[in-house]
């Protein structure tokens, strides 16, 4: 899949000196290798895009560049000098600034205070600093009032404060972590205008994203990251979206083969015109209409952060939207989460540590979680310890959960084994509808096949499944139908029998192909 790896970087920037050079960087965390053998060349005065799927290792790489984390292996050079940062302070000194995706701003401080914080020595905290902020703000068209409280600013303005912070410190290299993820289209245009101004004044930018249209609109060069390593570079002027999507998504693992269709005509889940807004009144989900039949797996494809989590949480009742949700013909939208679970809805959350487990409780207690009102966990108002333990043992055996005992705290298990426990739990008690996010994420290859097997078996027995996965092969292999979600809306409908990961990748990123 690295057919484009040899493509030379864009003509425009090939003769420029390198601002950043990364060679063979590797970073391990307990349980995973986040980066391995990463190579990256960023030419001075360019916008360099780093693209890749969620979980491809982009965030780790940029944290290493900014000194938040240290690489285990490999070298980094800035302006030809080899460096090794042990804190952001050192990166700032070397002229690198970072704009975090989750803004690092203190709400109750003014723009000026946020900007000068930690850099008071440069221009003080008074009139001189104010003048400097005003100068930068005017130079790049930020239109920021230094004395405004940050909590009164909109998202786009906050981002400009972040950029201003970086420029105020004299950074020539700016890392932007998914800067467009939180912006509406008009704000994106404004941001790009700012970035072009910055490039014109000689700044170098590393632009991290997975939105191909945006990347092609702003970047001079592109580097693609997949599964923790760099798999190629591309020239945004010549590369098609299709080629980029192919590089990003890849297709390596054995696909789960769908057996013959077990889809029935009985509607198990129906969502009609479901909407959800956040605290700020922005639409998280708009006009969702879905139907899943008994014995059907509906795959939901989408780049992370486009409303999948919100959709699942609305279904299980953690979030409250508007519109109608019926399960097996019964309207459940007024039900509490507990009643929905009692009605036979199983839930495999995207963030298992936050939503799926009690990390310090033993496995058998985790078996009870979410099933506090149903046998064998409880009898009447009492916890049935024997029943819960016996059933936990069954899950451990059947799903091959590698653990010394069912009394081990969940925290001690590896991510994959935690996931197997959750799946075993949610599949028990004969659910009628399974809401699953990334069921095989972080699971080893063998267990992956086993989990697929369990889902297929349950499907044969009439289970309806809503499946969200970042692994497109998994989606294609397991689903009877696939829908694509983009910015909280369903934008596409595919038949997995004649769709490729590349087609899906394009729909997910909002492109129509070239």
């Amino acid at each position, binding site marked *: 899949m690295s057919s484009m790896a040899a493509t030379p970087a864009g003509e425009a920037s090939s003769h420029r000196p390198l601002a950043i050079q990364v060679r063979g960087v590797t970073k391990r965390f*307990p*349980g995973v290798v986040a980066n391995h053998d990463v190579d990256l060349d960023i030419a001075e005065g360019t916008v360099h895009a780093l693209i890749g799927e969620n979980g491809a290792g982009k965030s780790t790489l940029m944290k290493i560049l900014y000194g938040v984390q240290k690489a285990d292996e490999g070298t980094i050079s800035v302006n030809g000098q080899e460096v090794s940062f042990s804190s952001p302070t050192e990166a700032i000194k070397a002229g690198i600034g970072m704009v975090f995706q989750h803004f690092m701003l203190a709400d109750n401080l003014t723009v000026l205070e946020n900007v000068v914080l930690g850099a008071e020595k440069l221009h003080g905290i008074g009139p001189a600093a104010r003048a400097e902020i005003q100068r930068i703000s005017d130079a790049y068209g930020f239109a920021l009032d230094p004395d405004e409280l940050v909590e009164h600013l909109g998202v786009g303005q906050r981002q400009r404060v972040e950029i201003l912070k970086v420029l105020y410190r004299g950074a020539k290299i700016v890392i932007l972590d998914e800067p467009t993820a939180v912006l509406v289209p008009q704000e994106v245009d404004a941001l790009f205008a700012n970035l072009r101004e910055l490039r014109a004044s000689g700044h170098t930018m590393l632009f991290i994203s997975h939105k191909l249209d945006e990347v092609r609109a702003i970047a001079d060069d592109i580097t693609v990251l997949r599964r923790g390593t760099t798999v190629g570079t591309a020239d945004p002027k010549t590369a098609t979206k299709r080629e980029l999507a192919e590089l990003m998504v890849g297709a390596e693992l054995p696909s789960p083969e769908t057996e013959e269709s077990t889809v029935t005509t009985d509607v198990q889940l129906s969502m009609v015109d479901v909407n959800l807004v956040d605290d700020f009144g922005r639409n998280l989900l708009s006009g969702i209409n879905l139907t899943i039949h008994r014995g059907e797996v509906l795959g939901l494809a989408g780049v992370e952060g486009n409303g999948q989590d919100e959709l699942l949480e609305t279904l299980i009742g953690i979030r409250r939207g508007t519109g109608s949700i019926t399960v097996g013909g019964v309207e459940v939208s007024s039900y*509490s*989460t*507990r009643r929905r679970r009692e009605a036979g809805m199983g839930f495999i959350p995207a963030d298992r540590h*936050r939503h799926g487990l*009690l990390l*310090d*409780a033993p496995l058998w207690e985790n078996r009870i979680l979410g099933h506090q009102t149903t046998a064998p966990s409880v009898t009447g108002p009492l916890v049935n310890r024997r029943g819960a333990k016996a059933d936990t043992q069954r899950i451990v055996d059947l799903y091959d959960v590698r653990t010394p005992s069912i009394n081990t705290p969940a925290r001690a298990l590896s991510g994959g084994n935690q996931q197997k426990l959750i799946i075993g739990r949610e599949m028990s008690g004969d659910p009628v509808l399974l809401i699953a996010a990334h069921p095989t994420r*972080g699971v080893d290859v063998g267990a992956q096949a086993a989990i697929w097997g369990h889902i297929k078996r349950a499907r044969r027995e009439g289970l309806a499944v809503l499946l969200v996965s970042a692994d497109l092969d998994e989606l294609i292999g397991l689903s009877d139908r696939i829908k694509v979600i983009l910015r909280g809306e369903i934008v596409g409908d595919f038949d997995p029998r004649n769709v490729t990961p590349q087609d899906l990748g394009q729909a997910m990123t909002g492109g129509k192909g070239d």
Partner: protein
Amino acid sequence: MPVVKRLLAAVIAPVMALVAAVLITSVVISVSGTSPVDFWQAMLEKPSNRSLVNIVNQSSMIFMSAVAAAIGFRMNLFNIGVEGQYRVASYVAAVFAGAAFVSGWLNVVLSLLLAMLAGAAWAAIPAILRVTRGVSEVISTIMLNSIAVFGVGWLLSNYGEKAGDGRRTTPISDDSLLAGWQPFERTDGKIWSLTVLAVLVGVTYWFVVNRTRFGFDLRATGQSETAAVASGISVKRMIVISMMLSGATAGLIWLPSLFAETASGHYFSSSTFQVQLGFTGIAVALLGRNKAVGMVFGALLFAYLSVQASALEFAGLDVSKNVVMVIQGVVVLTIVISYEVVGRWRTAAEQRAVTAALQSPSKQEVPA
């Protein structure tokens, strides 16, 4: 983990804390010019029979206070208001019992129920403020503690009967007083009958928390609110219920003393009502890690310390009995710090173990 190692891990934090507490207290003692050796000798002297009886009586009250605090702690609710809750409840119960609407044991039972109701009602205020207005229960319970002091003070001075300089509630008539048990000589005093309440409260607490669905929901909410919500627990409902249960338990704290025939007075007044038990209970709950058995030991330890300290002057030592409060405070601080430290060690050890496991290639996992 082998049994020995697990046992060690469970014991190491309390032991570290106690050692540190003894050292710090010794420094304080020697600053005052008393030899710490003499002090600890006096403290560790075998308690007199009379002291033993006192220890049992005091520990029953401290234990119930600890349970009241622990119910909240189990859910990450900081009910600092046990102090106010048991003051209000004790006053209400004393007024009711003194009025003698019914007689005999029925009076006792109804008073107990009323005390629980009053404690629960007082605790419901911060709970409701928390779930409807988002007010931190820490601040509101602190405020309510003081309001309870002045509110009860006002009621007492307006509706209480005169007795000497102060005011008191009507004394409970003899037929509602409970005799208690006399383990030693008559002069050594009696174990109050209602110390059995502590046993009941302890067993119920253990059973509800560990064996019931409600207890599971309570613990789950305390461990991870997000996971609790995803599992279908209504956190707001749990906050109100557990806060009120905490207050109801707090309502019982002082009643063993109130109904005891041998106690100093069978009424509520500024001289008979024992203050500060609410804060001692918080300390014991922390010491016992909110576990029933742990809190039994904690309550006995704290009762032992205060009873022995009261006897210090008889031992010829010029040390204020208030030194006990210093010890208690220091124990709380050292215990939470040492649990924190041990917790960090454990996390570090776990991470090392996982990294070690990762290096053996067979267990390598696909990167997330």
